[in-house]
């Protein structure tokens, strides 16, 4: 995945709310600091965001409420016009696209799922899911056939004739997901899709989401304020605070090397074993092994095996042994003791 081409990226993107923000940004050479922004009476919703999302990757944007996550994603899809910077999608600058071009790109290449579902109350499940195709002018029979396919994919078969308010929250969000998939988008934005659901359903929907992604392999930008969710789903995470992107990295990197206290606070309560990979805690290779574990395997997933064996396990990357994992290391990780492994980021 590291080597996949970049699908969507942004460079130096700013979004300031308030009077005449463009002039303000130009006057400060596109690099104002927080004090200058506050003095000018502006709100810095997104400050100097630089992000690269690779093809097939689940890229998560995390942060507390009001940190600018939604605003950033709306800049990426150009639902709102950034104050400055550039957004590059498939090697072209979205901000220079005309209205008609944007409509084409959104119709065929982008899909979005919303926190409060945003279903149209006057349409049935079938009508809602077929809606993006209807907008494109696809004939009724064709669009309904396709809609039925995705409805089945998200497990709502048999509910096509229901209206949104007759469904539970989880079911409504399944409709939202089905609807955003109906056009087979190349990039899939999800803005806190599971935040409005209660914890049990949320968990179920996360599993469902992972199942779908294993089939579909979309490029995904996913917003959440829940770090647990981020770890479960993410390939990489960007952490935002007051508009600034504080750190971008794998969940493991955030846990092992938080950029500041804010990030550390987020990751504090996360069980290490679920985040750390074998490679990040291994010690140099010995010689006598009970078995092998992949370098990227999470400690939690291999813990039982390593503990049960008398001898250490070899940590294997691309067919070569790069280190070993001992019982002691696994126990240290599980109980939360500092581990001085050869951590990689």
């Amino acid at each position: 995945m590291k080597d996949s081409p970049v699908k969507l990226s942004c460079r130096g993107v700013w979004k300031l709310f308030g009077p005449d923000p463009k002039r303000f940004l130009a006057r400060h050479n596109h690099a104002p600091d927080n004090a200058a922004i506050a003095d000018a009476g502006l709100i810095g919703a997104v400050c100097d965001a630089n992000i690269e999302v690779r093809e097939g990757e689940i890229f998560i944007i995390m942060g507390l409420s009001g940190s600018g996550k939604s605003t950033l994603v709306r800049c990426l899809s150009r639902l709102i016009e950034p104050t400055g910077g550039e957004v590059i999608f498939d090697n072209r600058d979205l901000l220079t696209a005309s209205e008609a071009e944007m409509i084409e790109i959104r119709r065929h290449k982008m899909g979005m799922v919303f926190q409060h579902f945003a279903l149209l109350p006057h349409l049935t499940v079938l009508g809602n899911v077929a809606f993006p195709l209807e907008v494109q002018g696809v004939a009724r029979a064709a669009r309904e056939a396709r809609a039925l396919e995705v409805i089945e994919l998200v497990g709502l078969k048999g509910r096509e004739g229901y209206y949104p308010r007759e469904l539970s929250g989880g079911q409504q969000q399944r409709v939202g997901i089905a609807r955003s998939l109906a056009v087979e988008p190349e990039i899939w934005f999800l803005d806190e899709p599971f935040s409005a659901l209660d914890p049990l359903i949320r968990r179920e929907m996360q599993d469902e989401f992972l199942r779908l992604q294993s089939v579909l392999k979309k490029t995904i930008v996913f917003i959440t304020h829940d770090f647990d969710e981020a770890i479960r789903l993410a390939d990489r995470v960007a952490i935002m605070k007051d508009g600034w992107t504080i750190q971008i990295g794998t969940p493991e990197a955030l846990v092992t090397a938080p950029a500041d206290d804010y990030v550390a606070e987020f990751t504090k309560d996360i069980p290490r074993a679920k985040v750390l990979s074998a490679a990040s805690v291994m010690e140099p290779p010995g010689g006598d092994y009970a078995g092998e574990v992949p370098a990227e395997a999470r400690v939690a997933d291999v813990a039982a095996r390593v503990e049960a064996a008398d001898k250490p396990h070899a940590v294997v990357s691309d067919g070569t042994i790069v280190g070993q994992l001992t019982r002691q290391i696994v126990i240290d990780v599980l109980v939360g003791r500092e581990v001085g492994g050869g951590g990689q980021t």
Partner: protein
Amino acid sequence: MNSVLHQTRDLSRNGWAVWGLALIAAWLFSQLTVDLLPWAHKYPRDWIWPIRFEITAFMKWLVNDATFGLFTFKELTRSVSWLLDWPLTAATSLFSTGLMKGQGSDAVQLTPPLAWLAVLGVLAAMGHYARDWKLAALVGGCFLYLAVFGQWDSAMVTLSSIVVAVPIGVAGGLMLGILAYRSPWFEKAIRPVLDLMQTVPIFAYLVPILFLFGFGPVAAMTATIIYAMPPMVRVTVLALRQVADEIVDFGRMVGCTRRQMTWKVLVPAAMPSLMVGVNQVIMLSLNMVIIASMIGAGGLGFDVLSALRRLDIGAGLEAGIAIVVLAIALDRLSQAFASRPPPQHHDQPQGWVRRHPWLSFSILWIALTGIGGLLLEPVQAYPETLELTTASFWGELVKYINITFFDYLEGIKTFFLLNLLIPFKRFLLDIPWAVIAALAGLAGWRLGGWKLALTAFSLSLLIAATGQWEKAMVTVYLCGISVVIASLIGIPIGILAAQNQRAGKVVQVIIDTLQTLPSFVYLMPVVMLFRVGDFAAMIAVVAYALAPAIRYTAHGIRQIDPNLVEAGIAAGCTRWQVLGKIKLPLALPEIMLGINQTIMLALSMLVITALVGTRDLGQEVYIALTKADTGRGIVAGLSVAFIAIIADRLIAAGSGHMRRRLGLAEEGGGK
């Protein structure tokens, strides 16, 4: 916050001093300058700005000579007339006359109109579709009443006008509303026009329309549409703004074009709120169709009007009650449509008939009654021999009341006239116009700053400058007294309704009904008991303007944070103390808004009471209407609007001021 509190407290302490000084100065000025500055006492005749003649001349030019190059203005109004005429003819043929061939007395009826049983059945079916059997029975019962009591033909004429006016008003309002939603520039341009249209009295619309379109149903239709459209524009803008941001984002994300966004996303998502606007358009159209009988609308309004002119109380009341019945049926029906529960999934039944049961029933019923009507006369038209008339009963009743209670009624009337109305009127007319204008400016400055001061002062000046001052003061006096009385009655009722749930429910039903009644209807019982004059007008105005005083007071008290009330009780307040020291002060801003609404309604009703012989601006508009004198009508109508605007802005500013002081709303602002 604290410093703000201090400031306002200082201000209000200063406030009394300022007002005291101002009033003393005003009194001294009035007493001392009668000979010194006569122009400040009575606006000199020579200084009057002859704008009304200019307007009249302009309208004449417009109608006779104006041309837009390709076509003249006259051709434009003719084509509008033609455009409105054919749907109106179609509707009248359908409901009342049947399809006619030929003109006047040689006309031959080709097909009969819809049978009365057909109309009744279809409307009842609509009631059942929109809610349940109970509504179907109510609507059916209302129309049965119209048939049994011999009001069917007039009611059908009125109904045809509404059937044409409402779709045009709704569609026009929706279009303008969508434009205003899309373009902030357009919204800015249209907002003041909407504000003005809501304050200009109804009669004032009629004058220029009468002049442009001539006397007749089309002119009435035009007035009705223009009158009923503004609220739809407002409701549309509001409803579209209320659509959740996520839904708008969704529409853009799937690549909707602007048109798709409007018609496939925004309008359907806003439908429930839009239906509230439709209900308003229906009720306003009904109100206006009745009043527009003065410029040629037939139907129930015409019956009331001609009865009023003949002082035939019985016939007038009969038609008045028929209007009430029609209003209730239309209101409940359209409200039920507005609050219809959202659709439910159902297994699509097979066949068109089973999927559209109400529509199939209606078509079948119309066909059946159509054929039945050809064979059996009573199916087509309710048999005249079975009609009941209450006119003579009402006539006798009124005669009886007037004979038996003449002394009491006359006593009450004289008492009020001598002790309240006439002294107050004299007092107001004695104050120099310049003093009143200055005081209005001062009030504007105290409550809202120099901008409001300028508005209040210059609008007062305009009223004087167009030579309307005396008539305007009569309007202010009648309106003022009516509002005070309406508040004295309405606020206690509102308090009672808020304190006591049972009373609240009863009051709610009563004011809901009062508010659906067209203003014309209020004149009947008043004329019946007190004949004509200022006192009769005052009673009608009070009755018409009562509802908002009650509604806002009750709402203001109900919305108080219960914690505050509990805190009061915990501190040992008695019930009266809770009411007087906690509830009323906190509800005051809301009550003021209610009084504001009361003033607006009072002004609009006052103009209609010109029919019972007041001598105010309303009379001026009414005379202009009978003489088709556009300039006179517009100038007098605008003066009423100015009074309304001054009152509205001052009260809104005062209420906002008070809200801020109570810490109820930080942002405050005038409106």
